[in-house]
């Protein structure tokens, strides 16, 4: 559904992504993991049109989208939930969601958009409670839900998620991740997920890619990556359950 082929991206003078290729099939959750500065965000921003690749191409649904502007890419069906959530802080929760539907907004669709908004509210009831509040007054987890809701309001086929768990308490992160899985299961949404928290990401993903200094160094089914010694050493650290077993012995 989404195929990235040999892209090179420069971020300023930094060669942030080097000849990276990856693909995401329909209905898959694919995790892209890697350390700080590995180029994960750069790669995602290139797909959504915020950055232009120096070389390579990106094909979505049979359509070349490599050099389209961000607004055209949203229209094509790719929504990007950016790193740091970037909700429109002074605007109300409701306005944030409404703006999510900007690319398809027309007065004829008002009914449909209101229904979509209700669907988001039933998924995240806390947003409904706070729908008149400025988005900046929400907690981090609520802002993440809002950012995801806003992206869903565009009715995407593919959701790009950049570090949805960043800065959140572990139980909130787990909740967000559960929502991501249910989005795929219920609506057949395709997800490309970038995470530093490699374990949580790989646990919900079907497949994964490991990015290191701009190169994809490893790829495979998520369970395999979870078992991979290199991945474990570099990104997973020691599992808490391992520690429990050790102390039991």
């Amino acid at each position: 559904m989404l195929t990235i082929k040999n892209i090179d991206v420069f971020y300023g003078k930094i060669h942030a992504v080097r000849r990276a290729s990856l693909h995401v099939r329909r209905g898959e959750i694919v995790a892209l993991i890697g350390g700080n500065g590995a180029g994960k965000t750069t790669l995602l921003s290139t797909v959504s049109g915020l950055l232009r690749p120096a070389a390579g191409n990106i094909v979505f649904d049979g359509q070349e989208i490599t050099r389209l502007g961000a607004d055209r890419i949203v229209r094509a069906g790719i929504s990007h939930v950016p790193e740091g959530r970037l909700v429109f802080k002074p605007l109300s929760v409701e306005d944030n969601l409404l703006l999510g539907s900007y690319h398809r907004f027309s007065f004829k669709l008002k009914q449909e958009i209101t229904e979509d908004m209700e669907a988001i509210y039933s998924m995240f009831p806390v947003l409904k409670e706070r729908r008149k509040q400025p988005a900046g007054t929400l907690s981090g987890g609520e802002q993440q839900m809002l950012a995801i809701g806003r992206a869903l309001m565009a009715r995407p086929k593919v959701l790009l998620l950049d570090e949805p768990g960043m800065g959140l308490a572990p139980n909130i992160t787990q909740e967000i991740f559960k929502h991501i899985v249910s989005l795929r299961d219920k609506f057949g949404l395709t997800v490309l997920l970038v995470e530093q928290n490699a374990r949580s990401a790989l646990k919900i993903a079907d497949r994964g890619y490991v990015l290191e200094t701009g190169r994809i160094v490893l790829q495979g089914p998520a369970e395999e990556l979870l078992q991979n010694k290199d991945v474990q050493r570099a990104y997973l650290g020691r599992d808490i359950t391992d520690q429990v077993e050790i102390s039991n012995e």
Partner: protein
Amino acid sequence: MLVLGETVMVLLDYIQFLISGLTVGSTYGLTALGFTIIFNTTGIINFAQGEFLMLGGMLSVFLLKFLNLGLLPAVLLAIIITTCVGALIERFTIRPVQKSSTINLIIITIGISIFIRGVAMLLWGKDTYALPSFSGDTPLSFFGASMHPQSIWILSITLVLLCLLKFFFARTIYGKAMLACSFEKKAAYLVGINVQRMVLFSFMISALVGAIGGVILTPLTMTSFDVGILLGLKGFAACILGGLGNPFGAAAGGLILGVLESFGAGIVSSAYKDAITFIVLLLLLFVKPSGLFGQAEVERV
């Protein structure tokens, strides 16, 4: 009896000050609205805002004089041309360098204002010009004070524009999308907003509002190539006074400044008229930097 008579006289004076203050204040408010629109979309303070008022007034005068158009066509054409100037400014001076920091863009707008003023001086010289009033010069009596008919035009057009803009930013998705561009540009791109087009529109609307302000003010105060400097500064002061980014605050700030100025000029001395604006501005910035109607930023991390 004598004392009562004096009180009435003083009261009449005050009403007179109030009316002229509100009239002048309206145009400060319109200038401030122009600042607000561009600021709300881009975070830029457009210091060429005053030149839009100058262009509105000067173009009307010259279209009327040299092309012998009627007053209404001349005025409308002047407003349209100024709006196009706003678009050109965005397209050729702001867009090519849009990646620069906000402060650089603000300095560019200062350059633009100097340029426009220079061109106006070359074209039309340094003379002062007048535009006929929209509906005659016979003063109307208002509670015993006299009121120029143009004042009514100024007050009502300002009010209408203000309501339209408020509606646009608070109730329409396009207005909200414009706001979104300044709050979180990256996210605005990601929801499919064409940010560049929004910035272009903001310069056009701002020029439009400025030109209308210039056109309605000129019959009362006359115009010359350099009226934009002081009007721009006053408008900016009004903007800060009301809280930057808030259209109603901007208009209210303008009215308050106008009234203060008018009372200051009437009671103290007209020599200090302009100083009063800036003293008020400084005092307010010491006490409440977010402006009278501005909200301190609400944010949780």
